[in-house]
């Protein structure tokens, strides 16, 4: 019984402190956490695109074909690949940054909606 009472007490005390800490956490540690996630997923995506490997090998012929023509074709194919992959990475990064922005705006937006409702 004592324990349940203590739990209820903790429930209210913690709820109040949490409500106070929540906005501060959101824009400090929470922001760092989410930013970390976003960077991580961008870097994972770029790793699976292997963009850097393509850039490094731009002058290396593909499929081991080493004559001049193949080298030329290979260079252009690689160029196209690099451009396409860069573009994909860019789009993905933009989406991720939008997500980050959404994270930052979300509470403000909700509060705005709420205040809006209360005033009307």
């Amino acid at each position, binding site marked *: 019984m*004592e*324990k349940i009472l*203590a*739990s*209820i*007490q*903790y*429930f209210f*005390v*913690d*709820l109040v402190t*949490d*409500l106070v800490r*929540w906005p501060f*956490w*959101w824009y400090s*540690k*929470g922001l*760092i*956490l989410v930013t970390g996630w976003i960077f991580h997923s961008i870097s*994972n995506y770029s*790793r*699976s695109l*292997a963009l850097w*490997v*393509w850039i*490094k*090998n731009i002058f*290396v*012929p*593909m*499929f*081991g074909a080493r004559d001049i023509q193949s080298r030329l074709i290979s260079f252009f194919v*690689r160029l196209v690949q690099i451009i396409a992959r860069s573009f994909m990475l860019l789009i993905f990064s933009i989406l991720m940054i939008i997500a980050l922005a959404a994270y930052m705006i*979300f*509470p403000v937006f*909700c*509060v705005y*909606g*709420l205040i*809006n*409702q*209360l005033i*009307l």
Partner: protein
Amino acid sequence: MDDQNGKSIPQGTPGVSVGARFWFFENKISGGSLNAREAKLLGQRLILIASLLVTVFLLALAIFGLVIDYQENPSYLFQIDTYFTASPYMLAMWFGLLSISFIFFRAFEGRTKKKFMPKVKPKATLNVSYLPSLDIVEKHGNIGDLLSTDAWETVKAAYELADKGGHSQVLPVHLFAASLSSTQVRTLFMRLGIGFDDIKDALRRNMNTIEKGSTDFGTKARTIISFAFLRALKNDRQAVSSIEIFAECYAQDEFLQELLYSIEIEKEEVENTIEWIIINDRLQERYHQFRRAAGFKSTGAMNKAYTSVETPFLDRVSEDLTLAAVRGRLPMLVGRDREVEELLRSIEGGRQSVVLVGAPGVGKKAIIYGIAERMAAERVPEILQDKRLVKISVPHIVSADAGSGAEERMLYALQEVGRSGNIVLIIENIDQMIGGMAGGVDLSPILASELEKGYTFVIATTTPQGYTSAVERSVLAQQFTKIQVEEPSRNEAIHILESKIGAIENINKVIFSYPALAKIVDLSERYMHENYLPEKAILLAQEVGNLVMNRGQEWAKITEDDVAELISQKTNIPMTDVSAEEGAKLLNLESKMHERIIGQEEAVKAVSSALRRARVELRSEKRPIANFLFLGPTGVGKTELAKTTAEVYFGNEESMLRFDMSEYQDKSSINRLIGMQGEGGLLTEAVRKNPFSLLLLDELEKADPDILNLFLQVMDDGRLTDGAGRTIDFTNVILIATSNAGTQYIQDEVEKGISLEVIKEHLLEEELRTIYRPEFLNRFDGVMVFKPLTQENVEAIAHLMMQKVAKRLEAKGITFTANDQAIRELAEKGYDPKFGARPLRRVIQENVDNAVAEFLLQGKVSRRDTLVLEPGGAIRVEKAAEL
């Protein structure tokens, strides 16, 4: 301050210094603080549940409102103004959305607060130390933050246990008892095959002696927590869990060690079982990490840079190991860090090919799979990154087209490797492709010349024999760095086996206990000398799993006895614990042997004692089970006793390898016994194929003295090297040599009535000196002198022989009887002091067998009739009553 055992307890705060930070258990532990901690956790859980409920309710309300208000005009739902118009439902929506972000905060705040185990520099020496005052350290960390949930449960339960008993201190014994209810420690007890009931009473008695007072979670308990933290650090664990607390209670407390020792649990067993539980945890952890990392590896033949070339021919004769690793088909490597590091270093250092040299089954393939796994996760030096590990099958290359054109095919495959540029070749048993081993073709020059060009390198494997006989002498030797792969030690083998047991358990639906595991390793080490650890242990574990599964009970527990039973089946050697029945049988071995052997009490007694010693494992494991020399005239029962011994110990008298040493009288006959290069020896092959046998060397005195030296080594070391360089194990044979040397002397002296003891002494010191060297005679566990048979002995033997005749006739449905007088007459006819019982056999043949044969052929006797041997040697037929 002294503890119960009178040992002084160190003063101060126990903890571990990692770098500049001092880690100690900071939390105050008291009834109040533990309850508060629990209440707080409960309160926080309530907050999360409440906010979830509120959110769901608000959002449901909002959706309900939107549906009600706009079901006529759903197009309004796409206008942003809709959500900003005044309405209680919209108020609920905004509130609900806001509380989603509150839940997000509640759920992920833990992540930003989570503490991680400190990083330890390699080779840093860590220890538990005691600080008199915490002021002298600048930075400190709280071990309490790193305790897992179940570790906290243990701490709490330990405190409550001490508190309930009114004990003044929380002691290791409390933490120990408390840890027993955690899942990990329960598993540990299950593996060890023990239960709480086994130690309950002793634990309670010990706790009754603890000093009373108000309970304090003091230095002793905190020391255990610090040690548990240290153990977790050393094992690279992610948190301190109850298994570490259990382990350190046991390691630090003498009473607990005694306690488990009293129920036959040794320290090493506990440590290895703890390791088992940690290995399982780590395998899971590693698997998840690996799956994440392997996701980035390209799975086709093409590398990420698209520089490689298709390799259609190579693909037909090879297997892509990196691909298999990415798909999770390869087993995980346990241990072997030294070999893997050495391998990577030599590849990285000089782009040099390597050859792993190790006996079959020691884990060369496992190391290669380990490399493939690392390549799949790209945790390898740059030279191996974005590459494929391809295992080429030499038999495929050689066998196509009946072997012709093998060189071309090899060259073609290698050129594909060269063109593709992203392949590292694996060649297993490289010795097979050298010097015509591969169907008469030597592929090594081609490989050597291609490797010299430097476009690729190879990881090969071979056995030590293969290395010395083929690789070392071939052109390849310069191209390869040799890496020795040793057989793992007993404990390493147990750990490797522990990592494999999970799969075996799941396939066969059985549970292995730790003692069974240790027994598997020990018995395979002792009785399977032809194979190597860990493979033989893994194969044996699979067999035991299968054996127990076939008994029909699901999830049955495998014990030591199951393992012993399997080995007994394989070897015919009794190995399970001696049952009461068998114990009685063993104690009466003499009378059992006398059912076949007449007289010769001393010899029978000596052999029986040796067999008893062997059965209860009191013999040396480095020598044959027993070495005996039987001396005595011919026909007195020497060979018969050897046969009886084989039957008693190995289950049947056919488990006997008999060598007539009169056939090995010159020096050249050594080669016949031990063989030469390319040809097995008669003795060594026989023992290699039947390692569990009785080895009978008849007429040893006739053998060449050099051959005696061979047996000197056998008797001393229990092994012999054959002509091909293989070591043959003799530790499971019973060696019995018979000799007629000194026969005349024995007969004369026995006639004079001299005691056997005196005769034996004189024989050893005088008569045999000329034939055997003293050190040779000393190697025998027993030299038994067989007495010449007396008239009474021969009569008893005649009885035995008549029983045999009766048995043979019984198969034909004919009863045979002979009265004592008739048998005595036979014995008198067959008695000759010079030849023992041998003439008796002839007499019985002539007088009984021949007559019976005639009766049978003449049809005078048929089924159900009785033959009676009467005094005077006549045989009478008693016709059975007509039916």
